[in-house]
């Protein structure tokens, strides 16, 4: 059974220039103990999706759809009710660890805070527990009393992770958890998240633009393009038998140490304008296989196997009249 079911989720932003459809009808589910990778280019809406799950959105955002978490629709909860879910059952590690810690608070106090808020621990108990947690993620005792500016980027990201898992959440959202980190530190952080999943049966949504990185740590992969999911499947299905032309192009564009001196192909053109996306399939203007039906396409995800789906008219040649549920 899945832990989280996202149904027809939409996040629109009212801006001066018009309505930005950052997330435009996303269906996605995450199973218990599963690591789901959410891949997409900048502006595809993947970070907004993560923020929407935490309900930390700017005021000009409008949220629609259903987020079913353990049988409850999170969007129907009041702000106060949701405060008991946010940070307790669903936690997030934000992009850019250096900025996601309060500069004037000791790191152990920041890790202790969720425990005081949700765990009902006293300040002393929470601090003691925070130091244990920090040790678990590889931040030594002597660093626990530090302020963020005294720590390296890698250590700060470990603190952010300790903070997120302190209340033993069921779901962890990790938004680009390794950008701005060095390659070696990146591998260390990814391994830490994997270990935490193994130890606590944590479900993880990992968001990144780097499909190769996601493919190393995720069980399933979802590919996002212009606010929509275009393909979702197990890691093997998506990496070895990609069906959507965008996924194929994305995979082919990744530089690799295996192909010395070879040019990787690139995706022509630019991502669409989020205010006026093309009608029909949004990838059509950049797609090598584009045809007239694509203009009518409604973004339906065709089933390729019990786990593998792709949103392209070419997939399986099934009729496009099928309507989404």
């Amino acid at each position: 059974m899945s832990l989280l079911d996202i149904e027809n989720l939409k996040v629109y932003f009212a801006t001066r220039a018009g309505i930005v459809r950052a997330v435009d009808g996303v269906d996605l589910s995450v199973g218990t103990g599963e690591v789901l990778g959410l891949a997409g280019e900048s502006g595809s809406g993947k970070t907004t999706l993560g923020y929407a799950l935490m309900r930390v959105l700017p005021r000009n955002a409008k949220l629609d759809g259903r987020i079913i978490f353990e049988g409850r629709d999170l969007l129907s909860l009041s702000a106060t009710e949701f405060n008991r879910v946010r940070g307790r059952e669903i936690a997030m590690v934000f992009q850019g660890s250096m900025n996601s810690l309060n500069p004037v608070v000791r790191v152990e106090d920041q890790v202790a805070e969720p425990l005081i808020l949700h765990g009902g621990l006293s300040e002393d108990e929470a601090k003691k527990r925070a130091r244990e947690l920090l040790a678990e993620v590889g931040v030594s005792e002597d660093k626990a009393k530090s302020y963020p500016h005294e720590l390296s980027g890698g250590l700060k990201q470990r603190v952010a992770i300790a903070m997120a898992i302190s209340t033993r959440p069921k779901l962890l959202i990790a938004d680009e958890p390794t950008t701005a980190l060095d390659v070696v530190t990146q591998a260390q952080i990814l391994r830490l998240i994997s270990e935490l999943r193994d130890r606590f049966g944590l479900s993880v949504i990992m968001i990144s633009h780097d499909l190769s990185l996601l493919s190393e740590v995720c069980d399933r992969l979802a590919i996002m393009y212009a606010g929509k999911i275009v393909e979702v499947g197990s890691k093997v299905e998506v990496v070895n038998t990609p069906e959507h032309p965008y996924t194929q192009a994305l995979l082919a564009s990744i530089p690799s140490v295996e192909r010395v001196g070879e040019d990787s192909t690139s995706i022509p053109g630019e991502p669409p304008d989020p205010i006026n996306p093309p009608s029909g399939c949004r990838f059509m203007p950049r797609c090598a296989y584009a045809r007239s039906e694509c203009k009518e396409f409604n973004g339906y995800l065709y089933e390729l196997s019990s786990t593998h789906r792709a949103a392209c008219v070419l997939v399986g040649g099934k009729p496009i009249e099928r309507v989404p549920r």
Partner: protein
Amino acid sequence: MEVNPLSEYLVSGVNLTKHFESRRSPIEFLTGRRPPPIRAVDGVNIEIQRGEILALVGESGSGKTTLGRLLLLLEKPTSGEVWFDGQRIDNVGSRTLRAYRRRMQMIYQDPYGSLNPKLRVSEIVSEPLRVNGIEVKKDRLAEYLAVSGLRPPEKFLDRYPHELSGGQRQRVAIARAMILEPEFVVADEPVSMLDVSLRSEILGVIKRFNQMLKTSFLLITHDLAVAAQVSSRIMVMYLGRVVEEGDTLGVLRRPKHPYTQTLLSVVPRLGGSLPKTLPKGEIPSAKNIPSGCRFHTRCAYALPVCSTDEPELRLVDGSHVSCHFAEQILSGSTKQSTS
């Protein structure tokens, strides 16, 4: 000015060193003691041939950016020499240096900070021509934008940077760097702030200019996959020193230094899995460099000798390596200590 007409290299750095003085605390000031300097680059020899792309690889803190800036004399070396086109240029006056400046250019990491937000693309790309009193021809601007992948170029000439995506900005930055037809360009992490899907395209632009103008590039990157795609040679740095240097295929297929192996193991691979062993901790501070082999504190193969004797750079299997046990590691006869 010292001249060496026999030099086959376009650019070379001889025993280059850059130490940054850290600020003194009041106590140090009163006692007259100096804090240890940050030894960013610590005795590096580097040569770049005409028309080649040399990749300089290492983590941040390895000194690779400082080395690149030393070669362009954007930083003054603490000691050592910089040679360009057979002439020593680190000790010339600012007037002479300015004449060299336009033959060497730089491409920056941050596509947002590298373009003046108040100028249009046409003004940005034509600036190097204007400040050098060269006539600005629209055809030339258009050509360089087109080679950089901004097509049709007319569409972009009048735009401001904020109207461009990160990838497009980086193309403009490259066009600006190339329009003077420089002989040598330092590209400092030109793709690390871009989406993975854009990287190969931008690297392709660099390769195109390399072939079109025979420009030599020093490509600074922490990502061996980036180095693999366009470089002919790779130089790996760790804490201010070169630890391995050789042709790209040799370094990537048969890495000899444990640090190179580490860097290679952590490059994400499609459908791969996380490396089994990772080095302990993080790169030490350049203020406090370990004795002996600088990598020994994180090395899985480290033996007592590594903490006392600093290995020399020596030729092993076609590459230059500074590791006491390069041969054994290559043949697989050394055991890793478990980490």
